[in-house]
């Protein structure tokens, strides 16, 4: 008898029961129990219980839907904003620096390769500045390349990377040659010291 009454109710309201919000509400066994109770004993109290539960369910669903949309559209807006800012601050090298002047940003970039020509490296620098005769003799025993590297490191104060660029080799190679040159200097100086 009771079962029949419930089944009849659901059958009569088949369309509404298939409404997604009602369906999800009824899929919770607690809610289903409340509804069944309200159908069998349709008192105000029972109906009110169902309503309270349903409204909190409804609000929850709305919240979830809202947050879901929020995340999606917020991420799109965020990226739009980021791209707009990025386009505004583009680095354009051949744009004029001031309104009327002809200089552009790219004309102010320093060319680091100028001035590090190899021509006068050995005769102009390192050896001329040595006063200690023993050291001078030891230095003259080094190869030209080793002398060049020593001069670039200690007289011109270039970085290993820059030297590698000028000599068209790798920084590791420069570092090796540098170490070998120092070792050779050390051994020749030690020998003479004995």
């Amino acid at each position, binding site marked *: 008898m009771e079962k029949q009454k419930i089944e009849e109710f659901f059958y009569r309201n088949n369309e509404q029961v298939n*409404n997604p919000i009602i369906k999800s509400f009824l899929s919770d066994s607690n809610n289903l129990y409340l509804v069944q109770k309200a159908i069998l004993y349709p008192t105000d109290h029972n109906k009110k219980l169902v309503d309270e539960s349903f*409204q909190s369910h409804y609000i929850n669903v709305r919240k979830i839907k809202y947050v879901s949309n*929020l995340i999606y559209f917020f*991420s799109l807006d965020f*990226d739009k904003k980021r791209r707009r800012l990025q386009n505004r601050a583009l680095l354009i090298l051949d744009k004029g620096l001031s309104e009327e002047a002809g200089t552009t940003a790219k004309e102010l970039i320093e060319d680091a390769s100028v001035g590090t020509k190899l021509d006068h490296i050995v005769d102009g620098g390192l050896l001329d500045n040595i006063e200690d005769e023993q050291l001078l003799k030891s230095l003259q025993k080094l190869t030209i390349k080793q002398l060049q590297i020593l001069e670039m490191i200690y007289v011109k104060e270039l970085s290993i990377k820059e030297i590698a660029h000028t000599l068209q080799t790798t920084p590791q190679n420069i570092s090796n040659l540098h170490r070998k040159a120092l070792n050779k200097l050390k051994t020749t100086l030690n020998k003479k010291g004995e």
Partner: protein
Amino acid sequence: MVIFENRYNEETLTIIENFIPKIKQCLHNTDFQEREDLEQEIKLKIIEKLATVEFQDAPSFWDFFS
């Protein structure tokens, strides 16, 4: 800040936790360098919106069965 300390706090946290996969998925809408920022911004926005937006006017259950 008072809004964030009331009873919605726990509920908001659960919602954010449940939405983490969705957030992660939406992070692909932006550059990879910006993703951490975006994740934080989204979470902040959710907290802000859940605390301020009013979710009311839910219909009565029995309205459906008139």
